[in-house]
């Protein structure tokens, strides 16, 4: 009996061994075939550029579609997209785009200016419920059309001048408008296919299914299995098809970073979306060829509820910031090359260089706290630090708690909440201190500094300042870059002095990349257009 069962176990084990590797990606083979396998974070919520938000969606949609302006793989320049060239009027309000003569949809139809008019009208149609509709509020009458006060779309500032050119008129001169055009909500849509699958407002998403989706980017949708894989194949009709060297991209939606890292290590992926905090060190010392750490346009900070005691006292806020050992935090805890923050806006946006400093000065911090009436932390009420659930956020919060206890003698209670609850608490001001982060959408300091305008939709600090708001208004119309940057600098300085937020570090992107992947360069917005990527099999 026992011998028998042993035999069975042996049979079973040999069966296991013999069918190993059944579906495992064979990375070498994929590389030879120019098939790029990449981890893509959580499953995309959809492929309709008007109905989704989020980074994983961006990765997929920007390989399938292309806007007027192309993304620069190496830096932050503006490359031709659907538009081969563009002109801007003197007052900065009228843009004229000339189209690529051979810009085509994946079904062979030509991409025409009307496709943009159609798409932008759809984005601005209230009944669609598009979250990014506000991006086009920069258009003349864009907002009015959206809120229904204007019925006639012809009066909105977008017009096809000819089959080859598109004219866009803005409400105000908007210096970063071209940056917005790199962003997927402003991409064109194929009117024919959308209308044949129920029209622009249909909710069943038939038109985005594989086989139905018509796109104009370097790749087209081939397969989409939810929570499993999304496959994009090279689009032969793409105007710049000769540039595209990848044959296929496989996007793997992977919720767990640990799983993703294991898949990468076992040779199933060319690139990961992320890397667990624990692993950075190990990769740095053992597999540094895979580890990529690149600056990223984002800031990690703590927001302070300035409406609450004791944080309504500026000196307390300053003390908290001064007692924050950013360098130690970054070097000993995060270890992924993050830079301690000296400003709210990360460096690297054009010629804007934030000049503020955020020193670590415990003596000064104690002094300020004493002045505020809490010498050595005595009498300081217990305050709460809110963070959204997650291993790494917890670790960081624990470090902060200890830091303030040690440096200032104040007690902080940690509170974690599920993401949506956390969002709601923040929004309703039901917090004292909360962790937060902000990622820039486009290359402009305004994408960071506009947060703290009075009654701003994302300003949960309760802090505002009329001068600050005034300066922000001025930047919206100021066309001279230097003067504009000077305004931003003043805002930055005011913000750092008032401390409604405690910036901690500038983000880096840490991920794993196989050396076979070529044309994948660091980029501050972490956009790596698939158009320029290719795979080079390692020399035998």
């Amino acid at each position, binding site marked *: 009996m026992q011998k028998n069962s042993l035999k069975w176990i042996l049979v079973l084990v040999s069966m296991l061994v013999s069918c190993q590797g059944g579906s495992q990606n064979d990375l070498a083979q994929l590389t030879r075939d120019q098939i790029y396998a990449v981890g893509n974070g959580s499953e995309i919520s959809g492929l309709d550029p008007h109905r989704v938000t989020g980074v994983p969606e961006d990765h997929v949609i920007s390989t399938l579609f292309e806007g007027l302006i192309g993304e620069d793989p190496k830096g932050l320049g503006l490359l031709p997209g659907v538009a081969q060239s563009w002109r801007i009027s003197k007052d900065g309000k009228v843009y004229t785009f000339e189209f690529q003569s051979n810009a085509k949809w994946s079904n062979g139809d030509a991409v025409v200016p009307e496709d943009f008019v159609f798409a932008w009208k759809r984005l601005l149609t209230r009944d669609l419920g598009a979250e990014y509709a506000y991006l086009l509020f920069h258009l003349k009458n864009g907002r009015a059309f959206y809120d229904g006060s204007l019925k006639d779309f012809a009066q909105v500032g977008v017009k096809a001048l000819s089959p080859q050119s598109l004219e866009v008129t803005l409400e105000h001169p908007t210096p970063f408008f071209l940056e917005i055009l790199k962003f997927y909500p402003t991409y064109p849509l194929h009117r024919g296919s959308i209308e044949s699958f129920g029209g622009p407002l249909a909710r069943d998403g038939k038109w985005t299914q594989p086989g139905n989706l018509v796109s104009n980017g370097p790749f087209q949708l081939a397969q989409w299995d939810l929570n499993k894989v999304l496959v994009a194949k090279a689009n032969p009709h793409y105007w710049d098809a000769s540039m595209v060297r990848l044959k296929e991209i496989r996007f793997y939606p992977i919720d767990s970073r640990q799983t993703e890292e*294991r898949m990468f290590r076992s040779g199933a992926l060319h690139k990961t979306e992320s890397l667990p905090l624990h692993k950075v060190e190990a990769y740095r010392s053992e597999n540094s060829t895979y580890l990529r750490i690149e600056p990223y346009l984002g800031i990690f900070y703590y927001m302070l509820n300035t409406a609450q005691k004791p944080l309504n006292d500026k000196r307390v806020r300053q003390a908290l910031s001064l007692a924050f050992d950013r360098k130690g935090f970054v070097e000993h805890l995060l270890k992924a090359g993050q830079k301690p923050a000296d400003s709210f806006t990360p460096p690297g946006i054009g010629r804007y260089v934030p000049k503020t400093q955020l020193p670590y000065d415990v003596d000064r911090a104690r002094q300020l706290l004493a002045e505020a009436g809490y010498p050595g932390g005595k009498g300081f009420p217990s305050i709460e630090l809110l963070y959204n659930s997650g291993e790494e956020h917890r670790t960081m919060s624990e470090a902060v708690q200890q830091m303030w206890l040690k440096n200032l003698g104040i007690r902080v209670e940690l509170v974690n909440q599920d993401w949506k609850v956390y969002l709601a608490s923040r929004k309703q001001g039901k917090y004292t201190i909360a962790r937060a982060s902000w990622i820039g959408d486009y290359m402009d300091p305004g994408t960071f500094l506009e947060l703290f305008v009075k009654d701003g939709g994302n300003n949960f600090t309760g802090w505002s300042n009329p001068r600050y708001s005034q300066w922000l208004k001025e930047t919206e119309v100021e066309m001279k870059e230097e003067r504009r940057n000077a305004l931003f600098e003043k805002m930055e300085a005011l913000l750092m002095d008032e401390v409604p937020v405690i910036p901690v570090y500038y983000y880096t992107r840490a991920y794993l990349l196989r050396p076979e992947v070529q044309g994948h360069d660091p980029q501050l917005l972490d956009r790596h257009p698939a158009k320029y990527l290719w795979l080079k099999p390692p020399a035998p």
Partner: protein
Amino acid sequence: MIQWAIRRVLQGVLVLGFVISLTFFLIRLAPGGPFDRDRNLPAEVQEKLLETYHLDQPVFQQYTNYLGRILHGDLGPSFIRSDRSVNQLIEAGVWITFELGVYALFYAMVIGLTLGIWAGTHEGTWQDRLAMGMSLLGMGLPSFLLGPLLVWIFGMKLGWVPVSGWDSPASKILPVITLGSVYASYLARLMRTGIVETQREDYIRTARAKGLSEGAILIGHTLRTALIPVMNFLGPAAAALLSGSFVVETLFQIPGLGRFYVQAAFNRDYTMILGTTVFLSVLVVTFNMLSDFLQMAMNPRIRLQEGGDLS
């Protein structure tokens, strides 16, 4: 018997209605809506979004609308996955989840019952201790720990099986073991206890006095009684297994319903939560009914009560 089944199905429908209603209101009470994100939308966009998904209507009206739709088998559009309806999403995940669940259930039953019977029939011996030690190990290693451990050993170090996915037979082994082991441990313990208890009964001695072999006693007499606590546990367990496991599906990158369910809950995808809850309720009701039915088939005393209800 048929009368009993009809009554149970009707009760099931009531349960379903109750669950749907309660869930419908509960999820709307939870803070954070489907469209709350890290960065807030302009107020007018937010407003319109709610309107689009009829979230601006009075809750009661939303409720009646939803009930109306559900009677037609339409679970509504997903709030988060805007390209799909809830029906489509469930359909996309359910078969894989079923497959995983059935394998895991099978694995758990084979391993668990075998171990339990083995231990129970060898009460107090080293075999008993070995089997119970294994069952303890299974309980002490929850799936979030067992999974990575198995992957690390068999996927990374030995390279026998893929570290993730759900396609080849080899890729299915680890997820099934990870999901099934805890249940196998539970079943082993319950089975063992059942056998040990039953073996003390006089009628087992009677069977032995008849000259039945130990095997025949076990199958024909002991298991009849000993399986009852197991059956009671199997109902909810089967429902839980077949409704998918978030941990295992995430760990192994399996496109099943468990991930949808948890993603939906965290994202406050109201229709999707409701859809998956409806699905789960159907499973629970069905499997508990099945488990009661099996018990009834096994226990004539309960059958007596056919006229009333299942006792």
